[in-house]
């Protein structure tokens, strides 16, 4: 090599435009490679995601179409209130989600550590990470919001300007709460490092309480005189809280409603379009202003905040559940001790991983909240049994997402520690069994508790409650067996990220099989109760008692039929538990790490 030119001689600092172009090119390359890899390696998953998204979108669209047709006939002004309530609550959620995403991307990622050592502006890194956070926030918003807005346009007979303006409105709106989330995140880290956790916890608690209060006050009057004029008036009065002219959600709602205006002959109203464009300009201007402020803040505070956060001393850990671990370790026979030790190890890892238990608490908590409020909803008592079975299916589906996301990767994650586990005087079967027990015991109490809560609120009798609890036990066993068995059968020992393991072929297969298993269990278990309802209906209509169908219905609803179907459920559960576990254990015994 010839003599060194030296850094200063040939290099220069990039302009903001050059930095933006560079990050854009990086983002496009990474996105393209990710999509290409998904096409090549995870077609099943990609197909499922697209199919389920389309089904989700279609279902929402149909539901909103019905709802807007109903509301349009009732009172057109309701739409404005609903839009405001929807967008304002979404706005609050976007502030938190963008803030959390930016915190992870800007302060905890390896990429941030790399970028901060390069000669680029701090605000360029912020904008790069903001773009990622915005993408994650935006697609969820589009998936949730677009069916509602398209359905409104269709019902209202809106013309093309409304549909053309939909996307710009949604994107410019999302930028505002996301930028506020980013500003809050950087401010908290730079100036309130020690208060960070407390501040976010308090803000989240306040937001949750406000949402709960709003939900409760909307739902509680339903018990007395649902859908009456008085109820509508009270509900509108409460929703009016969200109609604040200073809120971006109001600008968005108003702009969209203006864009949907038409003349008598069906042509787009030019005055409406002009108003809509004004609201869009208001959203864009505020989004840009907030981005400028966020960029300025990043310049002033990002590097400093990163440095401060890196220097934060973690609080000394207390071990409040140490007694429980010790009790579990020492309970039972000496031969079962290795299995219990493995169980305690997984329990500790679960407790100390906030991303695992917080999702568990949030999803099961929301489910519990819905079940507690079941009595507030007006439903025909004849449907109580059916709703009970649907709730059982929902509990199973939520459990299946957890077993797929957290339990399925557990065996694979042992891969990097195989040199420890593999050399311990523990039979490999015990490792698999410990994961199964961990999943089963962890899921059993919350799921059975939720099903009991749902049935109590629905006023279902004890015989059916016991059937539901049996089904719940079968679901917990089967889902744990599927996740652990397939996890042991198809381990990815080189992968360290649980989310990547769960989203691979094996994880997707586990989710699909789990969903089919839940459907099979719930459908088979529901046959006796459904037969009883149909039989009663036919009897009430005076249908011929001697018809062959009636004979089957009477048998299915009777004790023999019920016992037979319950035995079928148990058989399904045993098959779903032990077949994958058998396959998994056999493969795990032969595994060479």
């Amino acid at each position, binding site marked *: *090599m010839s*003599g*060194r*030119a*030296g*850094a*200063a001689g*040939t*290099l*220069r*600092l*990039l302009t903001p435009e*050059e930095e933006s172009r*560079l990050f854009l090119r*990086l983002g496009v*390359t*990474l996105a393209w*490679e*990710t999509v290409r*890899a998904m096409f090549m390696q995870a077609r099943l998953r990609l197909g499922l995601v697209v199919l389920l998204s389309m089904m989700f979108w279609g279902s929402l669209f149909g539901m909103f179409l019905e709802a807007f047709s109903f509301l349009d006939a009732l009172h057109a002004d309701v739409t404005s209130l609903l839009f405001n309530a929807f967008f304002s609550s979404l706005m609050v959620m976007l502030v938190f989600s963008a803030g959390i995403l930016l915190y992870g991307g800007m302060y905890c990622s*390896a*990429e941030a*550590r*790399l970028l*901060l*050592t*390069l*000669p*680029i*502006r701090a605000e360029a890194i912020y904008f790069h990470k903001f773009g990622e956070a915005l993408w994650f926030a935006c697609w969820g918003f589009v998936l949730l919001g677009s069916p509602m807005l398209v359905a409104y346009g269709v019902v209202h007979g809106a013309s093309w300007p409304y549909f053309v303006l939909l996307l710009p409105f949604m994107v410019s709106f999302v930028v505002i709460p996301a930028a506020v989330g980013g500003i809050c995140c950087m401010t908290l880290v730079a100036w309130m490092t020690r208060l960070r956790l407390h501040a976010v916890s308090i803000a989240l608690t306040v937001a949750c309480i406000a949402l709960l209060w709003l939900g409760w006050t909307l739902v509680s009057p339903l018990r007395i005189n649902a859908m009456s004029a008085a109820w509508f008036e009270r509900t509108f009065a409460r929703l009016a809280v969200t109609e604040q002219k200073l809120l971006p959600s109001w600008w968005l709602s108003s702009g969209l409603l203006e864009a949907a205006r038409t003349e008598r002959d069906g042509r787009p109203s030019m005055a409406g379009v002009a108003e809509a464009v004004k609201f869009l300009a208001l959203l864009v201007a505020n989004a840009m202003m907030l981005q400028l402020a966020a960029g300025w803040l990043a310049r002033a505070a990002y*590097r*400093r905040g*990163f*440095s*401060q956060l*890196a*220097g*934060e*001393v973690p609080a000394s850990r207390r071990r409040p559940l140490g007694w429980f671990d010790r009790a579990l370790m020492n309970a039972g026979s000496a031969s079962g001790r290795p299995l219990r030790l493995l169980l305690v190890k997984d329990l500790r890892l679960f407790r100390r991983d906030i991303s695992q238990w917080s999702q568990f608490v949030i999803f099961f908590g929301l489910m519990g909240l819905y079940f507690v409020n079941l009595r507030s909803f007006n439903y025909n008592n004849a449907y109580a049994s059916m709703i009970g079975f649907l709730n059982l299916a929902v509990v199973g589906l939520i459990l299946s997402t957890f077993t797929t996301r957290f339990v399925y990767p557990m065996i694979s994650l042992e891969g990097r520690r195989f040199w420890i586990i593999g050399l311990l005087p523990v039979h490999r079967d015990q490792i698999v069994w410990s994961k199964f027990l961990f999943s089963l015991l962890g899921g059993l109490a919350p799921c059975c508790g939720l099903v009991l809560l749902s049935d109590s609120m629905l006023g279902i009798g004890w015989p059916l409650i016991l059937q539901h609890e049996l089904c719940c036990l079968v679901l917990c066993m089967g889902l744990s067996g599927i996740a652990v068995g397939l996890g042991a059968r198809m381990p990815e020992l080189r992968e360290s990220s649980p989310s990547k393991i769960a989203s691979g072929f094996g994880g997707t297969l586990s989710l699909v099989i789990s969903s089919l298993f839940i459907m099979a269990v719930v459908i088979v278990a529901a046959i006796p109760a459904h037969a009883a309802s149909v039989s009663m209906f036919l009897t009430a209509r005076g249908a011929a008692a001697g018809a062959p169908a009636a004979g089957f219905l009477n048998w299915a609803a009777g004790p023999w039929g019920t016992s037979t179907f319950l035995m079928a459920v148990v058989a399904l559960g045993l098959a779903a538990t032990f077949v994958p576990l058998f396959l998994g254990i056999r493969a795990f015994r032969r595994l060479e790490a």
Partner: protein
Amino acid sequence: MIEFDHVTRTYGPRTAVADLSLSIPRGELFALLGPNGAGKTTTIRMLVGLLHPSRGAIRVCGHDLVANARSAHLHIGYVPDEPSLYDKLTGREFLWFIADMFGMPRHQAGIRIEREIEHFELSEFADELAERYSLGMKQRLVFAASLLHDPDVLVLDEPMVGLDPRSVRIVKDLLAARTREGMTVFMSTHTLAMAEEMADRVGIMVRGQLRFLGTLAELREQMALETTTLEQMYLELTAPRGGGP
């Protein structure tokens, strides 16, 4: 080239680096040694601008790392202890990204990328995605990226981790050649043999304080021991003492 001016860094009540004053001239290879938790990584992270000093200042080529971070970074190449790459970029794409970040002219960037690919023998896998690389391959790519812009100062944190003997030899030869040409190297390492072989001066850090600074000959003289290897002197100097600070 590198100047630590009464630098202190605290983590809450704990002082990780205490009143460090150190000046490293152009063309010197400096090795920072010390036991785990001595403050080496904190010193390195302050030197590359990831951490700010609680007190004092650090300057690279006259640029303050806090007040003028971008200009300072233009002169620094950094090889961290854990190589971080974009999994979905190929090695060559990563090198282009780094070259562009340093505002390198396209034709010059192309020449230098090929030069580093050749130096670090990356050509076999330069067009594969980084997610398929082994630790050693990643480390070689990070080395290549750090030298792409011919930095005035190269900062290395445990540079030999994951490298095979041939790659270690390549790195050593390259460091020797570059320091001869005027590049300054600041290296933190536990590999005493490498420090002994390559370093012009060593610093031995214990509990945040620089307990020794100088050449190996000066260390031997200061310790007035019959022992001659750096390992023996290092162990003597860093041995735990009763009481502590």
